[in-house]
């Protein structure tokens, strides 16, 4: 018998399982975010639901999702499970997301696209097929993902021979076998540098993971093989737990009931989102945000959003965004939508199902060739750090849109949006190979201020909100370093009538082993991405600090009093011997020797409203608590107080603030005059290397990738 790869006719696909055909490309996958059309059969299943079924069984699905998430989180390895960079989800048979328990709402977008791809491409392909007991797996952005550290296991749910749903479990994993450790290689210039990328493939049949394919993955991820092995199993376990429960529901209530319920959730999500949008003012709302790095070098990259709201839909136009480049800081349109979802599901639509139906009212217009719609061969492993410009601009534009509505309590200034982390690898004090990241800064950024209160200090991880930062003792017990300090960062929150929450700062020093490899990711070193809202200040800038060849251990051993206890004292007092380097927070992989000191900062959130309107008592309270400096109290908030007792001088404060207002008025000028002067300004040309033309942001030279 000879090889035969000619196409064969597969089974005919029933209407409820069909996926709208699209041209498969990185630029068009976002189209599958729209829910699939509802056919006659599906409509009748929805209508057959009895009064009360929807609320009762939606609640049941939520409990099922919670159960699966708990199993997933508790059985995995990666710290990103603790950070909440995960999702467990239930989809209709044709891949629409019915509901999810999401640590991050990114994956409310990324999950359904691979499922639709499998249904579109493989269901009828006799060489693949979709059968009960199959286990599919993917981590490829071209097929709907965000970047390849995000690995997803997904399983079809069959009952009585019929496909009724899909389930999935996805979590970020900080190692992909790329040219650098950590899964997000800063030096990657094309997709070939980024390590393992699996298109949606079947890695298991008959409810078993195929050993050969698992070995293949472990082989790809040989910097951290144990993590790959355990977390692949954990993902499959999470997806399978969901599958079992959905199947049980089908046994109890029938296939039509399950299919009707899942579709009803998608429909209800869309209708609810449209009702909410309809109550906001029609108009055009603009926002801009800047990133200051493309990873391997500092650079100014602009994200520009023009959101036009008409009745119950919103057109999201990112024209004016900087062009793509040859770093790994690029994205595709569905990645942009995913980063918008982070704000949408946590703020305006926090009470709606985590379904792609909720996103149906949005149209996405992202210019090809821009950094947010890069060529298919672009490296995109750092698309999440890049898409801070999406997170900020969406937050700003929609907060303005909702301000004059009954949904004002659902807005806020941008969160830190920095994604600050040290990535480390090597052999641990327990003689185990490891590659992981420091969740201490990653999960402790400041929240943006709200219309009626300050942002929360160290609130979490802006990409996943509910990020948990592990304890210092956890890391030191597992990995070979000692943490010198771990603090809230004074003055890091954006100032305003309501102040952005503070971020944190930490310093680690390799210990117990001669060396470790480390790099770091972050931004807002030169310009903060966490802008203020309605006059609020952005959060503070955040440099990286590295001191090599220190006498740290000797000083500790001697009990010296002058050891630094925060980032400012490291850089300013220089009590440690060694070579000091103040640099961008994004740093390439280097070797850290025992006693070297690596300082990493996490961003605060943006401020809200005018600083001169902040209650002076709140300012003094922040000063007493060490959250702001006396300079900030006097120069930014313009309050006056008695230095020793910190008692407010109300009269002097009022006079100072009046004077500040008068100074502002004097600075004021007519609009045309302002524009005329403003338009003549330009950033340092060095910063514009990857910006595109100034000020248009249009590509000047084509990107060549090898």
């Amino acid at each position, binding site marked *: 018998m000879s090889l035969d790869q000619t196409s064969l006719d597969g089974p005919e696909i029933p209407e409820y399982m069909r996926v709208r055909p699209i041209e498969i490309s990185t630029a068009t996958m976002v189209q599958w975010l729209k829910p699939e059309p509802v056919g006659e059969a599906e409509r009748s299943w929805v209508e057959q639901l009895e009064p009360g079924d929807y609320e009762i069984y939606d609640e049941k699905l939520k409990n099922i999702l919670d159960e699966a998430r*708990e*199993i997933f989180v508790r059985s995995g*390895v990666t710290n990103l499970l603790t950070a909440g960079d995960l999702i467990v989800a239930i989809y209709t048979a044709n891949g629409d997301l019915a509901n999810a328990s999401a640590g991050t709402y990114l994956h409310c977008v990324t999950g359904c696209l691979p499922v639709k791809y499998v249904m579109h491409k493989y269901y009828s392909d006799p060489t693949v097929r979709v059968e009960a007991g199959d286990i599919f797996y993917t981590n490829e952005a071209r097929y709907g993902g965000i970047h390849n550290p995000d690995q997803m296991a997904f399983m079809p749910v069959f009952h009585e021979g019929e496909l009724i749903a899909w389930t999935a479990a996805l979590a970020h994993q900080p190692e992909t076998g790329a040219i650098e450790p950590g899964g997000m290689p800063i030096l990657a210039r094309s997709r070939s540098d980024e390590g393992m990328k699996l298109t949606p493939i079947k890695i298991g049949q008959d409810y078993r993971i195929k050993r050969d394919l698992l070995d293949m993955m472990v082989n790809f991820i040989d910097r951290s093989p144990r993590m790959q092995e355990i977390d692949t199993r954990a993902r499959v376990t999470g997806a399978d737990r969901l599958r079992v429960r959905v199947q049980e529901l089908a046994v109890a209530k029938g296939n039509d009931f399950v299919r009707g319920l899942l579709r009803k959730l998608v429909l209800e999500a869309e209708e609810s989102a449209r009702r*909410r949008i309809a109550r906001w003012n029609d108009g055009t709302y603009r926002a801009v945000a800047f990133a200051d790095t493309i990873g391997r070098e500092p650079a100014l990259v602009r994200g520009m959003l023009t959101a036009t709201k008409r009745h119950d839909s919103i057109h999201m136009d990112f024209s004016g965004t900087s062009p793509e480049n040859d770093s790994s800081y690029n994205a595709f349109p569905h990645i942009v939508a995913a980063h918008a979802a982070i704000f949408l599901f946590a*703020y305006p639509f926090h009470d709606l199902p985590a379904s792609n139906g909720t996103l149906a009212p949005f149209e996405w217009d992202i210019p090809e060739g821009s950094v947010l719609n890069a060529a298919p061969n672009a490296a995109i492993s750092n698309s999440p750090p890049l898409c801070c410009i999406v997170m900020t601009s969406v937050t700003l534009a929609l907060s303005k849109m909702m301000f004059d509505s009954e949904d004002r309590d659902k807005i806020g200034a941008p969160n830190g949006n920095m994604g600050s982390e040290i990535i480390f690898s090597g052999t641990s004090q327990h003689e185990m190979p490891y590659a992981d990241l420091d969740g201490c800064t990653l999960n402790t950024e400041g929240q943006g201020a709200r219309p009626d209160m300050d942002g929360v200090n*160290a609130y979490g991880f802006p990409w996943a909100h509910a990020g948990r930062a592990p304890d210092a003792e956890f890391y030191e017990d597992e990995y070979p370093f000692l943490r*010198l300090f771990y603090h809230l960062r004074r003055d890091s929150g954006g100032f305003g009538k309501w102040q952005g929450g503070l971020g944190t700062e930490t310093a680690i020093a390799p210990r117990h082993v001669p060396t470790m490899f480390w790099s770091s990711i972050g931004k807002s070193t030169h310009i903060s991405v966490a802008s203020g809202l309605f006059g609020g200040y952005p959060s503070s800038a955040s440099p990286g600090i590295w001191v090599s060849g220190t006498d740290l251990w000797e000083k500790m051993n001697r009990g010296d009093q002058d050891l630094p206890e925060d980032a400012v004292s490291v850089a300013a007092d220089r009590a440690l011997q060694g070579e000091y380097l103040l640099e961008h927070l994004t740093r390439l992989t280097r070797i850290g020797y025992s006693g070297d000191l690596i300082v990493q900062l996490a961003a605060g959130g943006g401020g809200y409203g005018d600083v001169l309107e902040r209650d002076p008592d709140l300012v003094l309270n922040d000063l007493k608590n060490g959250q702001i400096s006396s300079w900030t109290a006097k120069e930014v908030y313009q309050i006056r107080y008695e230095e020793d007792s910190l008692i407010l001088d109300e009269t002097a404060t009022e006079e100072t603030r009046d004077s500040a207002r008068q100074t502002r008025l004097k600075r004021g000028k007519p609009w045309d005059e302002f524009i005329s002067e403003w338009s003549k300004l330009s950033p340092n040309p060095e910063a514009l290397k990857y910006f595109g033309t100034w000020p248009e942001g249009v590509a000047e030279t084509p990107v060549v990738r090898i």
Partner: protein
Amino acid sequence: MTTEPNLGTVIDIDIGGTFTDCYVRRATGDSTAVKTPTTGFRLAVGFRQGLEEAAKRFGLTTSELLLETSTIRYSTTVAMNTLLQRSGPKLCLVTTAGFEDVLDIARGAAWMDAAVVREIRNVARISKPDPLVKAGMILGAKERIDSFGQIVRPLDEDQFLTELHKVVDRGARGFVISLLFSYLNPSHEIRIRELIESEYPDEYLGAMPIMLSSEVVPKRLEYTRTNTCILNAYLHQSMWEELAGMADELRSYGYPKGIMLVHNSGGMAEVYRTSAAATFNGGPVAGLIGGAALGKRRGDGNVIVTDMGGTSFEVGVISDGRARAYQFRPVIDRYWVDQSMLEVKSIGAGGGSIAWLNEAVGNRIEVGPRSAGSLPGPAALGLGGTEPTVTDADVVLNYISPESYFSGKAMLDRELAYEAIKSRIADPLEISVEEAAARIKRTVDSNMADVIARETFLRGFDPKDFVLLAYGGAGATHCVGYGSRLGIQRMIVCPFSPVFCAWGSSTMPVAHIYELSRRVELLAAGTKAPTAEFELFNSVVDELEAQARRDLRGEGYNPELANLRLELDIKYGGQIHSHRIESPLLRLHSTDDVMAIYSAFEGDYAAFFSPVNVFPEGGVEVHNFVFTASMPEPEWELQISEPDGTTVDTALTGERSVYWTEAADFLDTPIYGQSLLKPGYQIIGPAVIEAEYTTTVLDPGFELTVDNNFNLIIQQLVKEPSCR
């Protein structure tokens, strides 16, 4: 209803948020259950009222009752009340310098702790728990110990003393010392205590509590260790004051003995052996232990215990006769602690839970988590409540009789309940009030069934393999509703269900629990070779056992009679979270012993998660040792009787029109008095059984039999009968 030969009268008290439950059992076998309103301003008042009422029922004065009493067991909400009022002392926290913000950082998203999903998703409105130690009262000591317990930086005593004087000047009235890796090397914490004591002896500022994290909870992870220690210091004073007040009250009646306090770990101990945090949620845990005891006596090893009260619904799981699961993320108030608290899951679903329409998602009916509480309470109570509650639905459907609710002590107004449901639910949905009420009941029953399912599945079990025990004020009314959805074959309502948690404490042993973090590599990564470091493992157990024996002996118990149990928190190498199992062995003597422990872990782990997750190749590590020493359980007997030849008709007290979902209509339904039911009686649903504090609802298709201990056993009939 229980008898305990050769002992005096036993009094069990459970102070809950709404009611203080009192269960009294005399040596004669007579018993009574009393519910009185909880007096939050001073818990001793409600306690005394309960005793007075119980004594009156026996024809005794309170003094006479207490004079014949041998034991008083007590589960209290003092800790919670103090927290709610934030009325604890001004504390100073001593941390390692550089880590003073441990409470503010709070592992990042501490705003999730104790929040429900609905709150967690609403990021625009989040807030973190307000630290119990304020800024300015946190002192960073210049010192450092590493992850092997080695001193990297010696304690700077001069700096510490300088800072100490400042915080005392700011009004510190107690100290919590929680340094990094103190669980491996407590020397710096101990030295700091010495410095405080020498600088501020008792005669200077009076006794101030000094708590060391290495003594309170010598376990890895500084955030939860610090929180646990702070809570104990914060609650210490108020708990002592409350208990002293109670002891004074009892002494004035002539009761000279001490009070045993119920612990959330499943045991109890004298007051002076009790940390404040150990009393949190003691009542529900007593119910769990009571469920295990009752199940064991009945031959039911697998029991799901459910407590539906006024504001919440609580679920616990007993497997093989034991409550095994501890809370994975134990949270007290809003503070994540490190304490082995038996798992009793709570959701906002009680009689007072408010039904509402969720306009955001198409006006669907939701129930809870908001509750009308005891004030204003359900609309039917007539205390100003206008929002419909589960109790209002039960009244409209006629499950609960307005006249006999709570023994007639709290008259309900059906019209008010009807109006609340009509205006808030039925009219907006354009459905009848009865249908709206039925949908409220259906929704809350389903929510409770879902949480039972989740909690059972999460432990690797299937609810179908369990019997369901229902108690609490509304448990009997709704148990058929939520139990039948899970395919549970048998549901039990016991005669003392309104005070079941108080009764449960009468079955609890004296027990102490000791915990310590030590890293022991059970199987080597890669090779899976069993450890040969028996001595390291055994020395930890030796240390914990010696402590247990010393404490038991100090309390006057014979440690030789104690039951010793070792539990281990184990994980595969690299994993973040560990999984707790009961060790089959107390000590290691051979590699076979190591493999026996690993096998126990693997079996439990595979059942809990999945066999797919088993991965010994990654290495297997023990991280925490949990050692429990418990004295034999107290003896108790249930009241027993045999069928006397009378028929169930003698218990019939009337008939009323009750709504049944199956018929979608009101049907004439027989009403029985629970106190008139006798062993052997059988009732076929639909029926309603009324007792002093509860109403049992028996749906069509179910039968109820009364067993020899007066328990009501509810089972689904094999054949579905038609509604009458």
